[in-house]
């Protein structure tokens, strides 16, 4: 089983992930159509990646009135567009902002793990987003936390 | 034997070897002595004169 590991401290705000996500899924570069979103404000110093975490017990699957969301072999929760009626219930209910609306096509969209090889991860040069086996992910998350602490310690900020 | 990595000497502009983690190193071409900083654990660089 694999999962995303996200470390906002490593996100530089370059948005290669958004550009390549739209390119992979829509064949065009258009960050506003990306499944991954970087909440970003360079003036306030914020770079925060938001993406569907492919929950174990996904709210989106539960609430979809037409059962349009299913799980594929990679554990991705996928929208079946032959069923989806675009009611946005999943968009509204997802507590982490994983489902969204493509502002161009109007379709409800979400991360589908690019057939097991998320393109955002490939393009993330700082490893702010990784896609790892859960046992490794646990270690990585702890390591990120400790590194953050050590950095703060070194800079005299704690 | 400690691992060695290369840095460029600012005086003769040749590459010289620095032992892993060392903060001072001497260019074996021209004898200049440099303070070294590490860009990565494998990449030393001249920071200034020693």
């Amino acid at each position, binding site marked *: 089983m694999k999962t995303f590991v996200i470390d906002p*401290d*490593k996100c*530089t*705000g*370059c*948005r*290669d992930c958004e*550009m*390549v996500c739209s*390119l*992979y899924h*829509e*064949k*065009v*570069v*258009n*960050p*506003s*159509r990306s499944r991954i979103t970087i*909440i*970003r*404000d*360079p*003036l306030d*110093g914020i*770079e925060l990646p938001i993406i569907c975490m492919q929950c174990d017990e996904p709210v989106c699957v539960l609430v979809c009135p037409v059962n349009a969301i299913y799980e594929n072999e990679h554990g991705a929760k996928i929208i079946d567009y032959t069923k989806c009626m675009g009611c946005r219930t999943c968009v509204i209910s997802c507590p982490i902002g994983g489902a969204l609306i493509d*502002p*161009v096509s109007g379709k409800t969209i979400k991360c589908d793990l690019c057939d097991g090889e998320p*393109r955002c991860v*490939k*393009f993330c*040069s*700082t490893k702010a987003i990784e896609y790892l086996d859960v046992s490794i992910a646990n270690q990585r998350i702890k390591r990120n936390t400790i590194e953050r602490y050590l950095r703060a310690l*070194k*800079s*005299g*900020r704690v | 034997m400690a691992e060695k990595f290369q840095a*460029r000497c*600012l*005086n003769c*502009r040749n590459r010289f070897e620095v032992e892993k983690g060392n903060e001072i190193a001497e260019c074996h071409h021209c004898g200049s002595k440099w303070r070294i*900083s590490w*860009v*990565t654990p494998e*990449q030393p*660089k*001249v*920071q*200034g*004169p020693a």
Partner: protein
Amino acid sequence: MVLNRKVAFIDLSKGKVVTRDIPLELRKKHLGGRGLNWYYIYNNVSPDVKPFDPENLFVVGAGLLTGMPMLGTGRTQISTKSPMTNGVGDANMGGAFGPEMRYSGFDHLVIRGRAEKPVYLFLSDGEVEIRDAKHLWGLDTHETQRAIKEEIGDERVESMVIGKAGEKRVYFANVMNGNKNAGGRGGTGAVMGSKNLKAIACRGLIDLEVSDPEKFMEYALQMNEQVLSTKWAKTLSRLGTPLLYDVSYTTGFIGTKNWQYNTPGSEGEPLEAENLQKYMIKHVACMGCSVHCRHRVKIDRGKYAGVVAEGPEYTMMGSFGTLVGCYDWDFVIKGNDECNKWGIDNLSLGAVISWAFELYQREILTEKDVGFRLQWGDQDAVLELARMIVNREGIGDILANGFIEASKKFGEGSEYYAIHVKGHPDLHTDERGVPSFALGIATSTRGADHLRSRPAIDLFQLPEDFLEKLIGYKIKSDFTAYETKGILVWWFELYFNIVDSLGVCKFQSTFNCPHCPQYDEYIPLLKYTTGMKFSKEELMQIGERNYTMERMFNILNGMGKKDDYPPARFFEEANPRGLPFMKGRKLDREKYEEMLAEYYRQHGWNDDGIPTDETLSKLEIGMPEKNFPEVE
């Protein structure tokens, strides 16, 4: 298609906008970005137009590859007739404005006229709206961007704005996007201010279609990896441009106390790049960049405690560092942040301030002229003088008009101490020991500058067969040589023009590192994105055409060979300090003349540096023909 972006002709006096397609023919001749910007200015701004006249154009351009996930394509080109030089005024800005402008449907904005009252432009989904900016006038560059985002109600709005300096038409005012991204050079912010144009904002949802998405994705990733595998990019990723300080202060090519010395020596140790790390919060990047050369920093203690900022770059380490005899990161960070908010080119500002300090040392300026003493190392004096320049107070009002006008006012030989070419201040590097660098700042179309042709790799003394393969000519490896360096500079002038016309980041080009992507890599990139096929020779020809057009603009505006010389000081005074091979070096006039002649020949220009008729016709450059459409 990537090519399906428009050009908007905007007349601020009339409040009217006309949008047009960009003909494929023009793409083939100029690509985009810097190249196309100068096509519009060359044809439409005649020599009688003064920089602050409404008839001057202010042109914004996205590169042909801007807004793609590779090679730092967050770049925007801003061009105009410069108040400092009365010739080419041109700046290239990082950040995220250019991409968003493309997503909003536009590749180029050609702006003329002057709005009656302050306005800003809002571009979205193929439309240009001229909006009232009365409430923004007087705000700094950060406040302005925040206010615009709030007003439009969209976090993803990007804007390029001017601050106080641009409003006051300080000749070296700049244009800013985000925290620290500057269209720094050429005084573009002053021209924007003269048009009563406070900001340009954009937000777009228009797809950038790529001709071969699969191949492009694969190749883009490969490009990023090629860059990241270099030692150069690894160093830049960690230290940012301050990495250059360690080299320049150790070797001895960093202007110190104006350009009296070429290094502070051990006094300058506190400014070593590694010492910036302790201020760091995290690394940030321009859009499309995998290198992230920017630091977000915070000052925790002391006089400037609480400052949170982005940068500073190497430029600031001269301006508020060695040039004025201050060796304190706190001060460099603080000054940098102020400059960013004022919207002023910190590089030019530093050169002008340090000049004033030297004039004070030489008693050409006195306490009475300034209002206080200008003593080397006095941080408060530096900051106060900077503030006076931005606000055009007292002597600041004179200094705000740049070297040429100010030195006429001050007289007494003050011009000699002003380090500039064509009226455009130099970066604080000291070029007198490196002939190729000296030629580069001298021939640069925008005046003294390090980003128009600097063959930084000349310092590495690369093997000559390697150089021959890279440049296509036999180039001397010895960086102190003059012979063949005219050709080297020529090559980089063309190449950097292409880099700016494509909108990729120079730090990810063959600038400081010969292993970064260049022509051979741009060819497939262009094919996979635009579907257009170019050969290396064709790209170089475009570079030559674009460059010659800028040269012609300068020539038509009265410049010529006389303006192709580095500052006189670099011929007169030898380097007093530095490593043995740098100490005692200065430029040799005779050899310089030969290098310049070789450079002219290489471009196909005559002995006076004027492109020959044959060269012009080969490049299909005619006399200017106005083509700004009717906007009634």
